[in-house]
């Protein structure tokens, strides 16, 4: 592809803004780019995260600059909301950051559009990836080329309010638990709490965190291997929605208003507001909020309890650091990636803030300094990755999601909500889902 943003393309972006502008200032909120970017002498780096992650990045980068005084870094950071909207606008306007934190779910889309720079040529030279497992690097590999360095092992796990569970006289389930166990303990939570607390937040619309694993347990993938179609059947999704409809009926899961409020807003998550004790949203840990005084713990996503169930969990790459193709400072960006991958102080600064560190060496480095919750988190992630590694019946790790994947996930979320609010029957929503999905993926 190798397309660079021309002056004309840039104008086109402006025009999109301007039509809205002509109608008023509807879009003025998003036109506030700085226009600096690659023309500046500084290397621009951007990431999303919590305050803790911001501080860790800044601390690590300060160390980097001490030994690399020639590379001046301009840091921009924010929450996840709007992060990629801004990135899209910046690319189109020719002011993309040189180096950015990339979502493993979106890397394929950006790589295929020629936005990201392939970095294979630096591996083994300025980019030291010693200790990185091949399966882990797959998270940043698109069509055979490396477009990003994974920050750590990412696993899908449930975050559990363990002390809340203990207060109700319930025990933390075993890591080898099943969906039936989840249903059982969630009902117990509701009963023992006198109807004040539901068990687990509604996972019926949660794409990566739970449905993808459920589908894999059925031997199906979320997207087909070539990434152009859905990989799961209508029957699987139907079973999934029926499971959650029953969970809501049993008060094992909260009503849809709570689920809906938590959409895009971690502070409204059922566990954070104290309305549930189990959540699939791994972002909750580290988001703080009202659960800070609770002791959290972590569990793998439950296993299938039917015969022939397969290992559904998988390991991916946390977040990635990627360089943009239009950047003139790819070599410098790669140095920073290498620094975050291998440097002792950087590893210690980042702790678990970007996932469980990717290498054995890094995990040993931080092991002693971890908080209690971090230790539990790492232990569970270790457990999952070992179980996945040993599993003989697991499907290969998912392919990087295709363009439109985020719209499919949103559709899944909205569909589950439509069922939960009673606006649609499961049957009707199923056919709507399978009607709309191909159009989104084909667009």
């Amino acid at each position, binding site marked *: 592809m190798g397309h660079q943003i021309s002056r004309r393309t840039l104008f*086109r972006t402006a025009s999109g803004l301007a*039509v809205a502008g002509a109608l008023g*200032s509807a879009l003025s909120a*998003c036109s506030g780019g700085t226009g600096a970017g690659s023309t500046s002498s500084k290397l621009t780096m951007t990431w999303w995260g919590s305050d803790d992650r911001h501080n860790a990045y800044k601390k690590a980068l300060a160390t980097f600059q001490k030994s690399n005084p020639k590379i001046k870094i301009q840091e921009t950071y924010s929450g996840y909301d709007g992060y990629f909207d801004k990135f*899209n606008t910046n690319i*189109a306007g020719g002011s993309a950051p040189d180096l950015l934190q990339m979502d493993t779910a979106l890397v394929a889309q950006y790589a295929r*559009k020629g*936005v990201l720079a392939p970095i294979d040529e630096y591996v083994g030279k300025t980019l030291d990836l010693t200790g990185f497992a091949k399966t882990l690097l797959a998270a940043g590999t698109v069509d055979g080329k490396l477009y990003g360095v994974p920050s750590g092992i990412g696993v899908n796990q449930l975050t559990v309010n363990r002390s809340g569970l203990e207060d109700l006289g319930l025990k933390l389930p075993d890591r080898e638990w099943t969906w039936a166990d989840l249903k059982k303990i969630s009902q117990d939570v509701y009963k023992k709490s006198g109807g004040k607390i539901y068990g687990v937040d509604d996972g019926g619309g949660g794409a990566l965190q739970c449905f993808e694993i459920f589908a894999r347990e059925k031997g199906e993938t979320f997207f087909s291997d070539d990434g152009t179609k859905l990989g799961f059947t209508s029957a699987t999704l139907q079973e999934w929605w029926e499971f959650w409809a029953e969970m809501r009926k049993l008060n094992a899961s909260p009503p849809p208003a709570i689920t*809906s409020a938590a959409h895009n807003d971690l502070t409204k998550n059922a566990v954070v507001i104290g309305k549930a004790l189990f959540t699939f949203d791994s972002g909750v840990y580290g988001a703080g909020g009202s659960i800070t005084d609770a002791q959290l713990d972590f569990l793998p996503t439950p296993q299938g309890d039917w015969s022939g169930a397969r290992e559904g969990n998988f390991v991916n790459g946390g977040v990635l650091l990627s360089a943009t193709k239009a950047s003139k400072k790819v070599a410098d960006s790669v140095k920073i990636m290498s620094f975050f991958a291998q440097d002792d102080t950087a590893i210690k600064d980042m702790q678990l803030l970007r996932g469980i560190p990717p290498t054995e060496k890094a995990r040993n480095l931080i092991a002693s300094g971890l908080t209690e919750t971090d230790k539990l988190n790492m232990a569970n992630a270790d457990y999952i990755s070992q179980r996945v590694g040993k599993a003989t019946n697991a499907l290969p790790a998912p392919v990087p999601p295709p363009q439109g994947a985020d719209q499919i996930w949103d559709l899944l979320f909205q569909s589950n909500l439509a069922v939960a609010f009673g606006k649609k029957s499961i049957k009707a929503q199923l056919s709507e889902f399978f009607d709309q999905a191909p159009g989104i993926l084909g667009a």
Partner: protein
Amino acid sequence: MTTAKTDEVVKEPPVPATPSDQRERDRMRRRLARRRGGGWWPYAFLAPWFIGLFGLTIYPMLDSLYLSFTDFDLLTPPQWTGTENYERMFTQDPVFWDSVHATLVYVVVSVPLKLALALGVAMLLNRDLKGIGLYRAAFYLPSLLGGAVAIAIVWRQVFGGDGLFNDFLAWFGIKGQDWISSPDTALYTLVLLAVWQFGTPMVIFLAGLKQLPKDVYEAAAIDGASPVTRFFKITLPLLTPIVFFNVVLQIIDAFKTFTPAFVISNGSGGPLNSTMLYSLYLYKKGFTDLQMGYASALAWVLFLVIAGFTAVNFIASRYWVHYDD
């Protein structure tokens, strides 16, 4: 530039004249030359406006018209697809219809309510009370805060499940719900926010009310017309030009509403697309889903719809707007 032509106009053929005529004509010529001289100067001063008009409005509008016939993802060059975007919008995009529905409900419910409240409050404030300026300012205040993100965030808190509004209802023993995350009520929290910001039309109504002739009211009062009669027979008919002005502006404004929907739904337009106002959908398509071609098509449809509504308003206004001349 018309410099050359004006010079010609000034250079009239010499006609026989008396000396005083000649002096008079010289003076005229000098004055004209001064007024028209250096003909490019005014244009230089106007240039920023022209650059803005053509560079930032006309050209981008035409370009977006072109883009609306293409598949353009912001990152790679646009591909011509003909009317595909428009066809997709009307035939294959259920979310488009959700957004049309949400927007129409929003416009149709919020504009009349807002104007009625604005007129009502304007009439209350149209009297000589002590500290009336303070009251007027207080009622106008919400509009100053206008499309502010902060207000939308406050709104989200107020109408959330554990928000102030439910606390308020609890006083009366009513158990509230989460108004913002229920698809049946979420849009109406946006309507309420719009209605609450009635200050701008109110100020305009107030200005209109101040101009109404007092003697008509005195005459009506002598004839025994009740306040209600006076309102419907005098105030409203005399005020129709102002009402018309406000209706047109508020409808256009309502169609373009973006910020509160974006903030209150966390950018999702949810729950179940119930707050997916058109501008929000357009934004999502263009900047989140990278479908700028489609977003351009959406923008043009919005433009035409607003133009249509405004035209209908102007035509209908012939039948109900009374100018006193």
